[in-house]
């Protein structure tokens, strides 16, 4: 890709499941080093959108480029520079934390050291714990660590801090801020307004599978004429994010 190309470019993405339109004509442009948030109620098409960008789903229509690569055609090249945290932690249930970290480290050239990763997500004390014995929050934190194991240049994080306690949530925010300082491009799906306000340079608001606004958090508030991002979301979509989530 050239220096003027965005890190993530999605154009007119459209996806239906049977007769239900999940995503319609979604276009996004995320610049290199930018943290873009995706806000929307359940069923707004957030996960389908990021899964199409990650190459996990094939769009019915539209085009995706990540670092200039086609997620399906250039799968192998993209996977080494892309880190993905899926909504649920899908990992081998009978392996220890340290074994899972070593397993995922073996997939990448020049991975982060295991100690650094475990410290990053505060799981050093649980390194010998079997995955299925971890709490929900610990599983989530491990899933985030594994998304970052290969030193990605683009990170897609779906529901980053859902289910985490306030301390763990703040620690994850620090991790994302560290990624920003390393010029990593982050696409962050979230329900948490405070998180989006703090971490995201810009936010795309999705409603019923369509992008209804893309702006900075301050820009969204101004556009909606509200004091908070929460109120801005309600004004732009007519839905309450907290109730719908």
């Amino acid at each position, binding site marked *: 890709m050239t220096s003027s190309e965005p890190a993530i470019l999605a154009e007119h993405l459209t996806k239906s499941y049977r007769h239900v339109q999940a995503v319609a004509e979604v276009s996004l442009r995320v610049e290199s080093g930018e943290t873009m948030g995706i806000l929307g109620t359940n069923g707004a098409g957030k996960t389908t959108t990021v899964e199409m960008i990650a190459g996990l789903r094939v769009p019915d229509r539209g085009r995706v480029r990540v670092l200039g690569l086609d997620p399906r055609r250039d799968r192998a090249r993209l*996977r080494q520079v892309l880190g993905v945290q*899926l909504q649920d932690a899908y990992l081998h249930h*009978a392996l220890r934390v340290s074994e899972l970290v070593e*397993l995922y480290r073996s997939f990448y050239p020049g991975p982060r050291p295991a100690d650094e990763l475990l410290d990053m997500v505060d799981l050093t004390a649980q390194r010998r714990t079997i995955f299925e014995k971890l709490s929900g929050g610990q599983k989530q934190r491990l899933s985030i660590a594994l998304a970052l194991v290969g030193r990605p240049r683009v990170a897609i994080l779906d529901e980053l801090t859902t289910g985490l306690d306030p301390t763990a949530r703040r620690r994850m925010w620090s991790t994302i801020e560290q990624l920003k300082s390393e010029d990593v491009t982050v696409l962050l799906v979230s329900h948490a307004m405070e998180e989006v306000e703090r971490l995201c340079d810009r936010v795309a608001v999705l409603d019923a599978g369509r992008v209804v606004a893309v702006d900075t958090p301050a820009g969204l508030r101004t556009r909606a004429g509200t004091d908070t991002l929460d109120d801005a979301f309600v004004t732009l979509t007519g839905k309450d994010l907290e109730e719908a989530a």
Partner: protein
Amino acid sequence: MTTASMPYRPGVRALLVLVGCEAKMVVRDTAGLVVPLGLPLLILLTSAGSASNQVVANGRTALEVFVLPLVVTMVVAMIGIINMPSFLAYYRRSGILRRLAVTPVSPALVLAAQAIVSVVQTIVGITVAAGVALLAFGARPPADVAVALGMVALTMAAMYAIGMLVAAVAPTPNSAVAIGLVAFFLLGALGGMFGGRDALPDPLAELGGWLPFGAAVEAISSASTGSAIDAAHLLGLGATVLVGTLVAGLLFRWE
């Protein structure tokens, strides 16, 4: 900004780590090991006493001609038809394959690791059974060891092909175990697992000789006595490998 021009392919190190992890998963699932390794051994122990004294062909005992080929086939079939597909179905159902799909590792490497661990399990099972037969009951090695090993390898390929087919059609891990068990007992019953094919009605006995379980028992038995392998048994096993692999390839899905 530039992107990597040459894709990185996880290689031998990743495969070794994957094999180690798969092996740990199997070892920690002790219940899954007891049946394929323990049940054939139990059958061997209960039958070997009388069978080791009964000479039936070419100076070979019933233990060498009937019991050991049956026990070996059972070990291979249980691991190939029941254990392996249940692991794959679990991986698919739990989203592990989906998670791996967003890493540089290829699904083929995951399958290869599964296959390697299954083969090791099978070798352990066969070694234990053969070791007990040789050391405790005086059984002798097959008359033609190379042919016997070749027949065991062909049996493994056939049973894994059926296992891949089960993994392809089973929607859940439980259904994989259920379908695998039904397939195992059906093929086993027709292949002489419950008292020999001679006890079956003629058409079923004939059919059982063509199907992979019966064909495997007969082929390994022939190798034990040093007799020529019947073409029908080779054909039955070969066709199972071909058809099972092709159909599983067409039906298999990662999600």
